[in-house]
């Protein structure tokens, strides 16, 4: 190689950590690249490795460690000096190691940018904390929400759906899944992968988990007189999902620490998750604000009509529910519940249903936001 001939100076040496196979202990060694070999100087003398026998990768928590594995023996050599990559690039030539070294060198070059992002995360946290003290908690939750991608929301949903009590096999489930799929197929720009489940529970209800998991309680499916009724309820829950209502609620319950961790892109401790889990376990009893409920109703009815179901079925369903409820419970609910009063709700649903149908007749789609 020409550049090798031109080099009159001694090869550069690097401090490295030498791990023998089957050992977690290292020996400090000095490395140098000579021709097509990597020479490691240990206390017991030099040891040579053919460059073509080495496997190179970036490792460590920050991805800033160069790890060379000698494939035939399983010996690992770790080094932090990125100039080693330049040497490997030059001496590895067109071989695999030269190519990988070039790529790794480029990756390491972009690391400072990543560190800058971390610093900004810290600054962001401090600014957000101060903002929180001045403006209260809600703007912080909104800010944090912006930093939660739908994929992260989905991972919360998956955590929940891990629970074995949920059914995704029975005939009832197939019905719910079919209706749900029909509804979500009408959503535009939908970032969520919806999943539908049935939970065995003697209660007429349904709830939404962040990220597109919707759980319908078994009694609701049994008591529903038509697919339209199920579609209305599911449309309402889909409304909660796309408005990210459950997530917002959970953020409030999860506390400031969790919110800040999300804003800053930080790691979350077990303690913070523990604060969050009880709320996640009682998802079905989370109360949304009346505004959130009304918005979910609106989106739900429009989606239901758009999917070819009758939005008026929601009203029948409500009225049947009301009749089944003892008066005293009705009064209690009216005082305590954040759900809009049934009368107002029915009126709104009737209007939305009619509006959506009229639009459809003119060949237009109702707005789903």
């Amino acid at each position, binding site marked *: 190689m020409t550049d090798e001939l031109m080099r009159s100076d001694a090869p550069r040496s690097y*401090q*490295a*950590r030498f*791990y023998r*196979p*089957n*050992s*977690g*202990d*290292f020996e*400090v060694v000095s490395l140098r690249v000579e021709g097509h070999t990597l020479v490691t100087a240990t206390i017991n003398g030099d040891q040579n490795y053919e460059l073509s026998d080495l496997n190179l990768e970036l*490792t*460590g*928590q*920050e991805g800033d*460690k160069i*790890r060379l*594995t000698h494939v035939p023996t*399983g*010996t*690992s050599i*770790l*080094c*932090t*000096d990125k100039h080693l990559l330049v040497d490997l690039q030059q001496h590895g030539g067109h071989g695999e190691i030269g190519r990988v070294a070039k790529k790794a060198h480029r990756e390491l070059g972009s690391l400072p940018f990543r560190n800058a992002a*971390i610093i900004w*995360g*810290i600054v962001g*946290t*401090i600014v957000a904390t101060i903002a929180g003290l001045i403006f209260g908690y809600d703007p912080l939750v909104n800010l944090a929400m912006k930093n*939660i991608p739908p994929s*992260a929301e989905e*991972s*919360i949903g*998956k*955590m*929940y759906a*891990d*629970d*074995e009590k949920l059914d995704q096999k029975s005939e009832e489930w197939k019905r719910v899944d079919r209706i749900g799929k029909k509804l979500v197929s009408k959503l535009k720009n939908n970032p969520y992968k919806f999943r539908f489940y049935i939970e065995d529970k003697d209660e007429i209800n349904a709830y939404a988990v962040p990220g597109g998991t919707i759980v319908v309680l078994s009694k609701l499916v049994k008591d529903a007189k038509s697919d339209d009724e199920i579609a209305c309820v599911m449309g309402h829950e889909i409304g909660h999902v796309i408005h990210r209502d459950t997530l917002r609620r959970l953020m409030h319950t999860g*506390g*400031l*620490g969790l919110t*800040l*961790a*999300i804003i*800053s*892109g*930080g*790691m*979350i*401790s*077990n*303690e*913070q*998750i*523990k604060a969050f*889990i009880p709320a*996640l*376990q009682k998802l079905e009893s989370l109360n949304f604000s009346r505004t959130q409920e009304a918005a979910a109703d609106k989106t739900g009815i429009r989606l239901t009509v758009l999917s070819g179901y009758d939005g008026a079925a929601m009203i029948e369903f409500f009225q049947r529910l009301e009749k089944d409820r003892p008066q005293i419970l009705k009064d209690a609910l009216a005082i305590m519940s954040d759900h809009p009063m049934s009368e107002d709700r029915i009126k709104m649903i009737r209007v939305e249903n009619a509006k959506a149908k009229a639009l459809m007749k003119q060949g237009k789609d109702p707005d789903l936001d």
Partner: protein
Amino acid sequence: MRYEVIHPGSNALVQVHLDPYEHIQAQAGAMVSRSEAIQVIGTLTGGMWRSFKRSALGGESLFFQELKAENGAGEVMIAPAVPGDIKVLPVTGGQDYYVKNGSLLASFENVTIDTKMQKISRGLFSGAGLFVIHATGTGSIAVSAFGALIEVPVPAGQKYVVDNGHLVAWYGDMEYRIVRGGKSWISSVTSGEGLACEFTGPGKIWMQSRNPEAFGAWIKTFVPTGGGVSIF
């Protein structure tokens, strides 16, 4: 400078002999005693910004105290708040260490300590705590455990799983990802099996025989409630 762990086991402390003008960094409040020659210097180690990061975000006290032999040779003793063992780990060969928040008792010679914020790179629920202490340079660090301190070497390519609450320190050469202890994420956290870190060798891990979070929860069962809620 000479340092050694005395009374190893559940009542361990570190005894340090300093030659004139030598100094160490110790967790604030960890000093047990000092001889006349030793001065406690409240410098903001690593500058104002680093100290602020540590205190505001790392849960460490504002000062990592500097203990310096200003007036001749002297001796200082340091101990952690919790009952448990201490080990002095060498920082050498470019090997850096990550230490769980609060477990770094002191650093000796040319070791720089900094707070690293962990990134949510593997999904939302990753976590040995938001921030960990990163030690680099040459010298030694003293890490303290709640209970016994167990060293586990992990050969190259092998994996080893440690519960988050038991984790103390690990080589920077290692990579880890978060895994769950129980069947599901929810059962992991509620069953107390918690989240765990799965490390990939080569490298070494140090863990403590008792989990402070679990211990705290156990103590709480004897304390009448009515206490406040922690928000961070």
